[in-house]
């Protein structure tokens, strides 16, 4: 990756990887740190990274940094159970977008990551597997279960409203 290609990567992927991390950890400063560190690593290794695999390198690095951050800080503890009390107390109607946003928080770390990579960035299952270190079949199952869980969450919220 040349300097010019590196800058193209920044312009092309920094927003996407930032969204991907932010949606996962829901912490702007940490998300920015992860993105900056990711591109620092890309720059340090730019001589050995091929431009064709740069996008995968960026997302893989960002994902691993995010996992390390989550495990280190324990700041974000997502549960796979519905935060029923919070939603019930609000008692408000949710748009689908908001429901999905809330539902995303109910997913496991891996489920959320693979779903975001699939829906936000359009990765195929094999590419997603390379980023999160899973095989293609595992990715498909994780994505299927993530969608199932989102669907269930939405149904539950609609029934409550």
């Amino acid at each position, binding site marked *: 990756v040349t300097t010019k290609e590196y800058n193209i990567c920044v*312009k092309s992927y920094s*927003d996407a990887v930032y*969204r991907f991390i932010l949606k996962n950890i829901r912490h702007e400063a940490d998300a*920015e740190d992860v993105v900056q560190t990711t591109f620092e690593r890309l*720059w340090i290794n730019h001589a050995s990274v091929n431009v064709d695999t740069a996008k995968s390198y960026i997302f893989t690095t960002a994902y691993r940094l995010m996992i390390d951050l989550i495990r280190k800080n324990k700041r974000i503890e997502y549960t796979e159970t519905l935060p029923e009390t919070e939603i019930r107390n609000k008692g408000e109607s949710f748009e689908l*977008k908001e429901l999905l946003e809330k539902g995303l928080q109910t997913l496991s770390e891996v489920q959320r990551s693979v779903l975001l990579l699939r829906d936000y960035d359009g990765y195929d299952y094999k590419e997603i597997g390379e980023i999160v270190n899973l095989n293609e079949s595992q990715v*498909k199952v994780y994505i*299927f279960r993530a969608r199932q869980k989102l669907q269930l969450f939405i149904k539950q919220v609609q029934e409550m409203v």
Partner: protein
Amino acid sequence: MQINKNNYELFAIDYIDGKLTGDALRQMEGFLAENLDIKAELEGLNLLVLPKEEHIVFEKKWAIIKPEINPVFRWFWPTMSIFVILGAFIFGFLNNPVSENDKVFISTEKTAVSADFKTTDADIHQNIIPTKTTEVATKQKEMTQKIPVRKYTTPTKVKTTGIDKKDSPASDLKKPMLHNSKTDSLKNVLDSLQQLNNKPKIQLNAMPFATVDLHKTIIKTSDLELNTTIIATALSLDFNNHESSEAPAPKLGKVLKTPFGKIKFRDIRDAFLPESYIASTK
């Protein structure tokens, strides 16, 4: 592979995406026909896609963008620096090509003056100092009076004869007409040198007590002495054979004041004396 409740998830996404084909598709459809609850779960899943939130952007791109240097301009400043240094050097050289002490002037007057010295073989054998005619002495005295006197710095190196690069019509106007470098010929100069070199002994007007051996003669000038300085380099001094000197013979290293500056006798081999200061007695 037979699709059942334990493995249907492996095929579910491809089924939802419409990518199952052939035998796998038929097996999946058969499985869903037998499990309507699962079929109901799958319905609508393909519509459940996270919306792209492109309004969320990474604001600190500027912090990770690296400056790009065009390969064409990568060597621009180093190259420019070299050109500037070379340009300054050439400019300085063209404006001051030769230091004042190193300027060499070709004179035709040398021949005439040198011819005034009348030295015979007998003189040489008797170690008699050559002399010059009264007319020439008078002429040289007038020349000396007209010519501004400046101090000489003792040159450390003698350059070969050449034409003064600063000679130009404008600069010629400032010069007395006794010498005109443009009309000099190398032959005249060489003749002058030869004649002057043939004088074994020359008495210096400024130093009547000193007799100078002219082992080597150099014609040299600078801007102010263009018309005055036919120069002889004295390689040695002979005080012993001089009888008419009223002044005591200077000791080695003594400084003698001359219109051309202070000359240390030990350095006289390097001193350049104007022709008008070269005198002799019969």
